């Protein structure tokens, strides 16, 4: 059969598929590393933590989000699909009230935004939201 175009394409597709499959764990581990650093390896579970983000971002440059976790001492925010997943960490002091924060973030593409909260009792909570980010049509 030899090196026909069809064979090359099939080989290319499988190679791509393998690369993608192997690629996913590489991408996930950057996020996992951040979370492991933050939690010291402990499990983060669902809880009162809430993450408010738009379903569709009008512009990936400025995406408003709000995160809140009653009883949290700090909340870390990650953007799983950004070139660098770290976004911000809110550390609440003694004069903080509701343990929540709002900000505006940059998202490079459609992805999950992840929030992990360290609670005052040493436990961890997590939640996430998928935000669709579109490339504009004209927008100048």
């Amino acid at each position, binding site marked *: 059969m030899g090196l026909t175009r069809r064979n090359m394409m099939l080989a290319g597709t499988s190679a791509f598929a393998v690369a993608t499959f192997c690629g996913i764990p590489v991408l996930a581990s950057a996020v996992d590393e951040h979370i492991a650093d933050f939690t010291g390896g402990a499990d983060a579970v669902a809880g009162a933590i809430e993450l408010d983000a738009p379903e569709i971002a009008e512009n990936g*440059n*400025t*995406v408003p989000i*709000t995160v809140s976790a009653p009883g949290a001492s700090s909340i870390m925010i990650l*953007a799983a699909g*950004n*070139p*660098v997943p*770290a*976004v*911000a*960490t*809110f*550390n*609440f*002091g*003694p*004069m*903080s*009230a*509701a343990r*929540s*924060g*709002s*900000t*505006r*973030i*940059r*998202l490079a593409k459609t992805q999950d935004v992840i929030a992990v909260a360290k609670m005052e009792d040493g436990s961890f909570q997590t939640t996430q939201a998928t935000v669709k980010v579109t490339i504009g049509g004209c927008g100048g």
Partner: protein
Amino acid sequence: MAKGVKPRVKVPKTAAAGDMITIKTLISHKMESGQRKDKDGNKIPRSIINRFTCEFNGQSVIDVTIEPAISTNPYFKFDAVVPETGEFKFTWYDDDGSVYETAKNIAVG
């Protein structure tokens, strides 16, 4: 000092003792992420505000570690408990070493 950096904060002027108040802050800053490339294809180096703190009468309200994914003109909204009359101090730390500050008083009657 990065060019044209200007802070803007919103704090209520008065509160009752023990009230929870909402504080909003914004600072004009390009937040160069380090991902962009210039006309010749070279990466423009990162230059952002990397930390924001708010204190009330010397005690921490919030301390935010900031990464390049925070948008240009960083905005933060958060709350604080106000036990007494005092001063909120806001501080932003720039990658280039500059520190920007502003303060707002609040009267508890």
